[in-house]
């Protein structure tokens, strides 16, 4: 019966796809806009901030070009770095260029991205196609991306490693009613190479060390395959407001399972003000080779004590406001807008301990917890 039910589901999906060619609809290129943003993240002893600029402009009727430039400067030291090294400052520059080509009901896209910092360089390209069909009620999209990273380590010129990344995405966006739209997204990531953080270490019990433990470098597997599936539902409420529910499941070959759910509410107050609020819950299990404290050095083939690979959850509360400014006299068609968004995130680690607390028996240090504040202030111009 289960097989038959699956056949029915698949054939119904086929049914819809077979109708696609006869559907009358038209894909639309994204609107021209420019954004200038200041962003800041502060939490866990680290401050990361900087500017970002994004520009999107049509060139003729069928082409839309986009460019993105982002800088972040990291300063301070996170709790894991505090235990083994000193505070640092570094700057990362990220550039993206994209082109979208409108061909009938389809948009074909190509993107290039590059990220540079003094010990890490990443380049990637992606190609995608999105097809509007079924009377404009359905959008199907496919994307493939390839990336090449070069990993260095400050203070060690002889250290040079590489990572090759590839990802494949599938998206299905569906209008369900006149006030309800949903999207199903799937992504497969295949990473191969040096996937460690070259600065982080694991700790193991060592009776000869005055602290009761010593450190050695992390060792990660050289491959990581991951699958993520998300479902977004967005509803227009009986009054002018939008509510969206976004859920995602993630799992990978390091045995990490994660789930997150986000509720977002957007409420225009007047022709000038739009307010928004969100709540997000995220939870993950640990990588199978993660431990906060190993029993002895090189206890197993792979070793990690990176808190991002530990078991933890976090809760985000976010609010935002948009203010629609009056049009400029010299450019009446352009619509300017000011935006401010603030997120507060609390991370609760379940098996990552805070080693900066002194006078506690080894392995019994308090579990680490951190609060982060994230701010985005940006000016947008739609034209």
């Amino acid at each position, binding site marked *: 019966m289960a097989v038959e039910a699956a056949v029915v589901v698949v054939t119904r999906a086929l*049914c819809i796809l*077979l109708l696609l060619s006869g559907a009358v609809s038209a894909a639309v290129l994204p609107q021209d806009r420019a954004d200038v943003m200041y962003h800041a993240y502060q939490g866990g002893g680290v401050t990361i901030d900087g500017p970002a600029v994004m520009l999107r402009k049509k060139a003729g009727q069928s082409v839309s070009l986009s460019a993105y430039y982002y800088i972040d400067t990291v300063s301070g030291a996170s709790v894991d770095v505090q235990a083994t090294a000193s505070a640092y400052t570094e700057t990362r520059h990220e550039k993206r260029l994209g082109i979208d080509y409108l061909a009938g009901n389809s948009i074909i896209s190509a993107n290039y991205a590059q990220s540079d910092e003094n010990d890490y360089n990443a380049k990637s390209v992606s190609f995608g196609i999105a097809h509007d069909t079924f009377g404009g*009620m359905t959008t199907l999209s496919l994307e493939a991306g390839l990336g090449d990273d070069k990993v260095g380590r400050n203070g060690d010129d002889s250290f040079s490693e590489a990572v090759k990344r590839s990802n494949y995405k599938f998206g299905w966006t569906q209008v369900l009613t006149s006030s309800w739209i949903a999207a199903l997204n799937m992504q497969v990531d295949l990473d191969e190479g040096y996937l460690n953080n070259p600065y982080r270490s694991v700790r193991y019990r060592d009776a000869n060390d005055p602290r009761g433990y010593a450190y050695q470098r992390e060792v990660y597997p050289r491959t990581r395959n991951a699958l993520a599936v998300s479902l977004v539902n967005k509803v*227009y409420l009986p009054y002018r407001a939008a509510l969206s529910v976004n859920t*995602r499941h993630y799992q990978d070959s390091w045995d990490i399972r994660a789930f997150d759910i986000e509720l977002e509410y957007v409420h225009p107050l007047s022709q000038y003000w739009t307010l928004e609020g969100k709540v997000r819950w995220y939870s*993950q299990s640990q990588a199978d080779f993660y431990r906060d404290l190993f029993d002895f050095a090189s206890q197993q083939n792979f070793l990690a004590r990176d808190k991002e690979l530990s078991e933890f959850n976090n809760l985000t509360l976010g609010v935002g406001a948009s203010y629609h400014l009056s049009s400029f006299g010299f450019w009446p068609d352009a619509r300017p807008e000011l935006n401010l968004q603030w997120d507060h995130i609390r991370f609760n680690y379940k098996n990552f301990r805070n080693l900066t607390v002194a006078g506690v028996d080894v392995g019994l240090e308090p579990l680490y917890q951190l609060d982060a504040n994230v701010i985005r202030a940006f000016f947008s111009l739609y034209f």
Partner: protein
Amino acid sequence: MNKLTSISLLTLLATLSGCASVEPWVKPYERDKLADPIMAFGRHPVALQHVAHVQDSREAAKGANGSGGGGCGCN
């Protein structure tokens, strides 16, 4: 051909034969609410990039946080 395959093929044919009755049920002129900017996926792309970056840096999970976009056939 075993029984299961026969049933599957019959089911496939029966479902495909009903294709003609499946039509878009939300007409373009009924999509004014979906066309409202507050209903757009990724209203602020520059902010979304930053949100995704913050999450990807501090969480093991990544991906599938975008949308194929469009879909409402508005405009």
